[in-house]
């Protein structure tokens, strides 16, 4: 059992797990023909079949049943507030399966020129009473039953009385904000806590105005919407749900990483060797001290950040995103590509941290302006 536990502890490290998730992601949700070819060649599309569903659910269940025998695993998984996230893992996969199964069925129908499964004769309608009312009624009774069983079986958490003098370690935000708290590792609070959440909200609200593809309105479908679905799934599954899972289960004292089978050692030491871009360039490369003028000191950071947001949009508009640029026009494309670059800045910053120990690209703590 120990080798298995050690293997999982190593595998779940953010560096490894996020790398694996991000780089296998396009094979599961292919956004172009090349990935689609490999998706079929590696038989990953079997994931959206009934056998795939059964295999994954059994696999996940086995993992938790076996894992829960371990004291450390039990301690973290069965914390009352963490139980819903265990449920979330199952629910997210199940509903991903439900939608992707129907989408791949419809893709087959559409490729042979047929109508999607949802299509019915427009004249043939059903009455809300009783056809819909009973579905809703049964759903809400089942939901209430589940909620009652859950409430009787599991007490709501109540810790020691609030005490401003005793800071718990780790202090965690509510679980649905742990993705944001995980971002705090890589970004300053003004970005991770304020600017990015605002951009996420506006970005989500902008989706219908940026996705001009008329295909797939009102039925499940993947093939003709693969770019839109890939971007949404990447943001939701990897940059939101996966970060929540990491923040909930795998972050312990001092926000250090702990594998699911690892003891939460409060004395675990992580070397803090993060340095800023200005220090890398002036001290490591030029062997001089940092210049006293802030603008001179941070000029390289400004070049990198502004370059990122100024060079990539026209470059992408001429190459891979040409079709979208023509579809959306200057303004729409500008918004779209800005949102896309913001989203990708998180994985980019993660890798800069992991590879170069980079803390900030622009570091002006004098004005709380760190990127």
């Amino acid at each position, binding site marked *: 059992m120990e080798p298995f536990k050690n293997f999982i502890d190593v595998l779940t490290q953010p560096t490894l797990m996020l790398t694996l998730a991000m780089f296998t992601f396009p094979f599961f949700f292919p956004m172009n023909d090349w990935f689609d070819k490999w998706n079929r060649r590696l038989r990953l599309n079997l994931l959206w079949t009934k056998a795939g569903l059964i295999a994954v659910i059994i696999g996940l269940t086995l993992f938790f049943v076996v894992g829960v025998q371990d004291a450390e695993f039990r301690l973290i998984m069965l914390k009352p507030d963490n139980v*819903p996230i265990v449920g*979330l893992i199952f*629910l*997210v996969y199940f*509903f*991903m399966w*439900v*939608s992707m199964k129907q989408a791949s069925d419809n893709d087959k129908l559409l490729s042979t020129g047929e109508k999607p*499964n*949802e*299509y*019915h004769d427009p004249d*043939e*309608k059903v*009455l*809300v*009473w*009783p056809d*819909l*009312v009973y*579905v809703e009624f049964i*759903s809400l009774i089942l*939901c209430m039953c589940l*909620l009652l069983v*859950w*409430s*009787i079986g599991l*007490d*709501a*958490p*109540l*810790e020691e*009385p*609030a*005490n*401003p003098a005793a800071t*718990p370690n780790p*202090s*965690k*935000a*509510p*679980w*649905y904000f742990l993705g944001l708290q995980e971002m705090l590792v890589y970004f*300053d609070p*003004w970005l991770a*806590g*304020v*600017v990015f959440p605002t951009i996420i909200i506006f970005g989500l*609200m902008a*989706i*219908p105005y940026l*996705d001009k593809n008329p295909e797939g*309105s*009102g*039925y*499940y479908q993947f093939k003709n919407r693969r770019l839109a*679905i890939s971007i*949404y799934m990447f943001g939701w599954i990897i940059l939101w749900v996966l970060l929540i899972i990491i923040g909930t289960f795998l972050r312990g004292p001092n926000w250090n990483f702990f594998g699911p089978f690892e003891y939460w050692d409060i004395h675990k030491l992580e070397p803090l060797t993060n340095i800023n871009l200005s220090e890398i360039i002036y001290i490591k490369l030029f062997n001089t001290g940092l210049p006293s003028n802030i603008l001179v000191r941070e000029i390289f950071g400004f070049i990198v950040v502004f370059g990122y947001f100024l060079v990539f949009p026209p470059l992408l508009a001429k190459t891979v995103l040409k079709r979208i640029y023509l579809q959306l026009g200057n303004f729409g494309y500008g918004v779209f590509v800005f949102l896309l670059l913001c989203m990708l800045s998180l994985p980019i910053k993660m890798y800069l941290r992991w590879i170069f120990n980079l803390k900030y690209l622009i570091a002006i703590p004098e004005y*709380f*302006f760190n990127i």
Partner: protein
Amino acid sequence: MSDKKNIFERFGESQVWKSIFRSGVPRTRRQRMMSVLNSVFLHLHPVRLPRHAVKLKFTWCMGGLTFFLFLVLTISGILLMFYYRPTAEYAYTDMIDLGEQVPLGIMREIHRWGAHAMVITTWLHMFRVFMTGSYKPPREFNWSIGVLLLVLTLLLSFTGYLLPWDQLAMWAITVGGNMARATPFVGHEGPGAALLSIGDINFINMGADAKFALLGGRFVGEAALLRFYVLHCIGLPFVVMILMAVHFWRVRKDGGISGPT
């Protein structure tokens, strides 16, 4: 003997029954349509729907369940308000009493687990709407309303998190509140806050910034508890109900449930 009616049939024909349910027991097609049209609750629905729209595998009933959980949370929340006092002195002990002194004391559990469940059902509803492309014209605006409802759901859950007034609550809100002080321009540790000053006088300081506005103080204390309580019980539900009305209205007005043409 055969025309003698049993008590239920007689009651069904009584003046009292007919005055409440005007269309009678919905047996015929006409009565079934009227029963939806005449009911203030059921007429959120149209009378007839395309066949795919009533299938569970299409809608997952997630929007409906989210609304249902909102009702469960409202009812259990009202019951909790009978017992709970939002002061530093009583809040925590009232929590203990809710579990130990109140008969059948699972109301707090229903409220807390229901809140977690509602966050999840909201995400899944959004996911379903995305995967069926139901945000496409003419339903763009309703998607945006839905995003606002998602944000409000998270804020409702966040404000409720403080109310038990235990360590979990206080420090989770402290983590959240610390983000507010880094807000650009209006947080005292945010970029640009120093620009809002005349000479040595900073307009944005520890005693007047976004964090102070959120918590009603420099740290999570009794003022924050009251502020979050009012937002949780009155402020946010008020906004949610208005947006929910718009959301449901627009589902109907934007052409009903989406479907292939």
